[in-house]
């Protein structure tokens, strides 16, 4: 069991950086999710850790050992590939045993490990089948089983759920989380789906264009995103962003969005002082904009008039596409709402959850 450290790791393909100057410290037993849009460098990072791609510069450690030039098979890692990479001509048993037979483990030991892993994953009755006889979900478990029997120091998973249908995905998510708790090994997981990241991770690393944006717990990246990108990427539907100007009214600062104004929570007043009469970016999550008639109690709200453009009823909540002046934004409101397309209504904005970003650096203002 070991932690993983990245020290200023970069990967260049020709002249472009796939990963730039990545530094992360991942303690043992962490479930780290690398998340970001396509091309952000998450898979490249995983592959460098696995030893499938060379490192242009920087150091990667597994445990205390520098593994830059260590061949993949000696790094004590196991990987679950996006397409599972099962050997089509071998049975499930042989697929799972392959790595162990190569390491010349005694047959009895191999048998024990394979059966144990198979039982853990519920595939013990599939051991004699070939991959083409299995469903997608079953193949995925075999891929997991193949990694488990190796008993590695670190588990690497490359978008393992992306080939499963939606329902299976939700189910498997929970199973992978349980597996992590059960095995107690470090998991490094790559995905482009922020829901998977939020639900499974103990730590999330958000990447964009090869650069690490933020490393933190799911709660941290959700509540205190470090920049516009993270705020917009985490959370679904995404954060609403508004271009606004800070204004002063006597002692208090407020946000002038043109069509309406919003007060600023007391704890933010000081940080926003330098932006008076200057432009600013405001981020408000749809779940923090309520139907004024159904506002949860004890929230510090400001009421804003808006016009309803489209309503999407989901049963447990309703999504409202709203227009106020030149601003268009989304709100997640109580399903009992009376809002209808074309009507005017009042929404209540949770002021204390507003996020502020510098318009030039796009960094969060705290």
């Amino acid at each position, binding site marked *: 069991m070991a932690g993983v450290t990245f020290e200023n790791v970069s990967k260049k393909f020709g002249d472009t950086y796939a990963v730039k100057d990545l530094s992360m410290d991942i303690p043992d037993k962490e479930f780290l999710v690398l998340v970001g849009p396509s091309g952000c460098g998450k898979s490249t990072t995983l592959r460098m850790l696995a030893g499938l791609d060379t490192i242009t510069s920087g150091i990667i450690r597994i445990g205390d050992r520098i593994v830059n030039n260590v061949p993949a*098979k000696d790094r004590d890692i196991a990987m679950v*590939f*996006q397409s599972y*990479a099962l050997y089509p001509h071998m049975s499930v048993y042989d697929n799972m045993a392959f790595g162990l037979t190569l390491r010349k483990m005694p047959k009895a030991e191999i048998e024990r490990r394979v059966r144990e892993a198979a039982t853990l994953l519920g595939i013990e009755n599939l051991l004699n089948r070939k991959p083409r006889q299995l469903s997608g979900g079953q193949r995925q478990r075999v891929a997991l089983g*193949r990694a488990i029997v190796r008993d590695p120091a670190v588990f690497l998973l490359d978008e393992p759920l992306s080939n499963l249908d939606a329902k299976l995905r939700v189910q498997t998510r929970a199973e992978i989380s349980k597996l992590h708790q059960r095995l107690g090994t470090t998991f490094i997981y790559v995905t482009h789906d922020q829901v998977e990241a939020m639900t499974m991770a103990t730590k999330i690393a958000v990447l964009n264009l090869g650069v690490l944006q933020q490393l933190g717990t799911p709660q941290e990246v959700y509540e205190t995103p470090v920049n516009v990108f993270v705020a917009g990427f985490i959370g679904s539907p995404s954060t609403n962003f508004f271009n606004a100007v800070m204004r002063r009214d006597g002692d208090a600062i407020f946000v002038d969005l043109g069509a309406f104004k919003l007060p600023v929570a007391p704890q933010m007043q000081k940080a926003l002082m330098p932006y008076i009469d200057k432009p600013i970016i405001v981020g408000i999550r749809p779940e923090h904009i309520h139907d004024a008639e159904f506002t949860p109690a004890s929230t510090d709200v400001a009421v804003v008039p808006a016009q309803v453009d489209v309503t999407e009823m989901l049963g447990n909540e309703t999504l409202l596409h709203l227009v106020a002046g030149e601003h268009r934004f989304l709100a997640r409101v109580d399903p009992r709402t009376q809002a209808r397309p074309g009507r005017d209504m009042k929404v209540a904005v949770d002021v204390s959850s507003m996020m502020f970003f510098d318009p030039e650096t796009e960094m969060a203002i705290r």
Partner: protein
Amino acid sequence: MATRYGAMEQPELAAGEERASFGDRFKGFLPRLPLHAVLIAVIIIWSVPTIALLISSFRSPQDIASDGWWNALIPPWDFTWSNYDAVLNQRGMGRAFVNSLLITVPVTILVLLIAAAAAYAIAWMEFPLRNGLFLVMVAMLVVPLQMTLIPVLRLYVNLSIDTEVPIIGGRVFGPNSYLGIWLAHTAYGLPFAIFLLRNFFGSLPRDLFESAYLDGASDLRVFFRIVLPLSMPALASLAIFQFLWTWNDLLVALILLGDPNLAPMTLRINSLVSSFGSSYQLLTAAAFVSMAVPLVIFFALQRYFVQGILAGAVKG
């Protein structure tokens, strides 16, 4: 009735619809009569030469000379094995058959192994000049055999090792040696083989290899336990191709093997033709004996043969 270029299917019947009666189908058949006529004619025309030969090979020399082979189809039927007997036992065809095997089988195995090894390296290992080297290898397909034979023969003469090889005969190396013709045929077969196999190996999923490397497999392991088992169709096609090409070759044998004891069937028949131009009773039987093996292979393994051609001719 829609014409499909894909597999023929019987259309689904809608509720209440009945399958067309025989009369209806016959009417539908008539406009297609020209189509069938043309195709049947083509089939017949294409098969006639071979059938003519086959039938004649069972007739006595007098019969062959006196009237056309088609007459043999009407009774009385007067067939004989004597031609085959003469050819196989007296004209050295039996030995030639063995020689053809002795030449073709080792060559096929060698080509498969050597080309697979090279194709594996080109497909999955990284090294400088990788693409250039592959292009050069494939470009060798262009070289007409004729261009290589004088120098190769000279080389063989200069490097000749004259000791006689036990059992199979011929020199150890040089002109009239099995080793010499094995190596030559193998070399000539490599460009196509490497081209075919490299394309096929390249189409195997990358993460299969990565997973194996992660599992600790060395290159040799991956080659024998993953690449080869998964490439059986391509290997089969190649084997058939190489076998037929080598079995049917005349030119290389003509130049590198002068000794009649080592001559494969093609060579034997060629000399039969030149010395016995019109003794058709021998020629027909001889030709058929030489065709026997390729035809058997063709009928038994048609699918792989065709696949091989397709892979070589169309993008693999």
